[in-house]
């Protein structure tokens, strides 16, 4: 899917690729925008770690360079295209009433795939609710995400085997849970060598204001916990621009706790991969924690219930389209002759299949049985709850009897 398909209405005058006004200019908020509170910026600043420019140019970085093969680059491209396609399909499914809500990741593919692919199988991830790309990297099929948004479950995958915790909606909670988990990795003696374990926790720019995120940083620093704090600064917390949460770039928080903080171009999958891999290695070796601020942009609405036209200008999105994470890698693959049309066609076909499969799956998802709500409240069920379930089932059975008698169908 190319950038011009981003806007739901086909009427937008999207500027293609590296053409059009330079991103920096387009993105710099005007005085009026600033006054109107529309202050999100696409400027990552001097400290931004970047390995692939928006124009698809490979650049080097003194600290965070990475050796990567053409095959690996193609894999990253495939990951991003597929998760975007799954995301768009799920978004469409919501529009069609098949899902109650969807939380789009559009625009954040590079941040998530970079981080997700930096992880080793033994590492643990604690997502927020938008980490469909990380889920993908942890081997969670996109179909497994649908239950949450269709309302059939609160997460269907096994956090223990996938090493991908359940989605957490209460902002910030998962950061402390991740810190505790990482403390456990350390207590288990899994830290201190290159094959050690580490944890990555994902949260947003808005989340950084929550006390829990602070406490997680305090704990992790004090216990040398092997945890990477991966903040996707997508510039917005629903309708609130970054400036409602902080005066200074978020990566700087780390210095107040005494561990490294790095701002990475979150639309650059290579940089995200390189920085996260470095951070995870630091953690593995016992030099954690590390904070990564992935500087990116939420290209779609906060959720399908949101209407971003109420609070941000189309201009801003236009500016960010020029930094599209997938497009820049596509250009790079072509320019370096790492991939030909066959490859791109193959990926597109695969994406179509995935979308079809997701759709099919969604239409056929079974309703959970009524008694499910009483299940697994406790590991050791209480008599009180068992009695409530029995009474409820009796009550339901009464309807069936009534209907049977009335010959009706409920």
């Amino acid at each position: 899917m190319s950038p011009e398909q981003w806007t739901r209405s086909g009427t937008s005058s999207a500027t293609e690729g590296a053409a059009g006004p330079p991103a920096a200019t387009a993105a710099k908020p005007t005085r009026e925008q600033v006054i109107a509170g529309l202050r999100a910026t696409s400027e990552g600043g001097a400290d931004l770690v970047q390995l692939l420019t928006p124009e698809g140019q490979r650049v080097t970085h003194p600290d965070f360079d990475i050796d990567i093969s053409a095959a690996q680059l193609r894999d990253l491209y495939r990951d991003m295209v597929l998760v975007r396609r799954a995301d768009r399909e799920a978004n469409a499914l919501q529009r069609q009433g098949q899902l109650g809500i969807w939380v789009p990741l559009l625009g954040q593919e590079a941040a998530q795939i970079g981080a997700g692919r930096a992880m080793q199988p033994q590492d643990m991830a604690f997502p927020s609710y938008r980490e469909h790309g990380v889920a993908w990297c942890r081997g969670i099929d996109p179909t497994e995400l649908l239950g949450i948004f269709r309302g059939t479950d609160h997460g269907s995958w096994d956090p223990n085997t996938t090493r991908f915790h359940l989605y957490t909606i209460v902002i910030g909670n998962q950061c402390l849970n991740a810190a505790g988990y990482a403390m456990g990795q350390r207590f288990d003696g899994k830290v201190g060598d290159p094959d050690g374990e580490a944890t990555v926790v994902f949260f947003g720019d808005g989340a950084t204001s929550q006390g829990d995120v602070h406490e997680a940083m305090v704990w992790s620093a004090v216990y040398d916990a092997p945890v990477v704090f991966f903040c996707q600064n997508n510039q917005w917390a629903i309708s609130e621009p970054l400036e409602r949460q902080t005066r200074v770039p978020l990566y700087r928080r780390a210095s107040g706790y005494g561990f490294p903080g790095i701002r990475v171009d979150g639309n650059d999958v290579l940089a995200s991969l390189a920085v996260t891999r470095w951070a995870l290695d630091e953690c593995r070796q016992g030099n954690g924690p590390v904070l990564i601020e992935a500087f990116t942009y939420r290209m779609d609405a906060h959720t399908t219930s949101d209407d971003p036209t109420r609070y941000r200008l189309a201009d801003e999105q236009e500016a960010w389209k020029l930094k599209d994470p997938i497009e820049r890698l596509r250009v790079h693959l072509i320019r370096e002759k790492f991939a030909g049309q066959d490859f791109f066609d193959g990926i597109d076909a695969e994406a179509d299949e995935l979308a079809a499969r997701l759709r099919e799956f969604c239409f056929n998802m079974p309703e959970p049985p009524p008694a499910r709500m009483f299940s697994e409240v406790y590991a050791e069920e209480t008599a009180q709850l068992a009695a409530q379930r029995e009474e409820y089932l009796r009550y339901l059975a009464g309807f069936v009897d009534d209907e049977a008698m009335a010959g009706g169908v409920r």
Partner: protein
Amino acid sequence: MAAPALERPTATAGTQTVTIAKALNMGLRASLERDPKVLVMGEDVGKLGGVFRITDGLQKDFGEHRVLDTPLAESGIIGTAIGLAIRGYRPVCEIQFDGFIFPGFDQIVSQLAKLHFRSQGKVRMPVVVRVPFGGGIGAVEHHSESPESLFAHISGLKVVSCSNPVDAYWMLQQAIDCDDPVLFFEPKRRYYEKAELDPTTPPIPLFNSRVVRAGSAVTVAAYGPMVRTCLDAATAAAEDGLELEVIDLRSLSPLDLDPVFDSVRRTGRLVLVSEAPAESSVTSEIASRVQQECFYSLEAPVLRATGFDTPYPPSKLEEGYLPDLDRVLDVVDRSLAY
């Protein structure tokens, strides 16, 4: 796209048909106009007008210092509102959804509820915490909870819930006028229910309950979103010749139980209805008080139709979780069976 301009309600505006959501917006607007010390604060309440648009247009008209988009942290919202109240402001905080009030719980319990008492009356806490609550909207986790009982248990707080547009309009203004902290629970699934509102008709007191349908067979008491359910149940029952008396409790702390006692003395039967789990809740309290006050009048024990003692289930199951017309009538039948 700019937010649609709201008509400013005036005392002479006359009757209009409004939703609960609109009535709340009008109530906030009226309070902001009446008292420059009133502030509205919370996540996304400014430009967006709140995720339910209850604060729609207010920041535009009253400015960023009266209607504040706050950082994303509920302890911060409540904790700074307390400081603003100490300074003489009357903050109205919006908690985006019921399930997100808990990070602010400590400030509510330890400071908001206690400061008037701690200071022997020298510090007042005219803070309103608005909480859209309850289920039935097909939402994801943490968006459908009914935590009101937790606050009813905390001494020093007042807890109310509105069930219709007229109450929404008045009760919110009364809560803002109240010099004590008020937890204001809004029935989010009913936000778009409509009624006639005449802003010139004076309201009943904030902390009073009210008989909303007279009947003689069984008393049914509820609050917030379940009032509608109970009224529907009463309509259905009436078709079968059974007259239910329906009481809208309105205030959960303090409870105004005299109308309930009066009713139960006539009917001998009481059914309490709420979405919240029953265990150690407001409905427990009412049952406890009624069995004490009406000991000799009760012909059946006080019975309850409530959410189950489980976490709020995935939304595909909420229809079964939430008391509905059938569940209410089932419990009414059980009451009558005594």
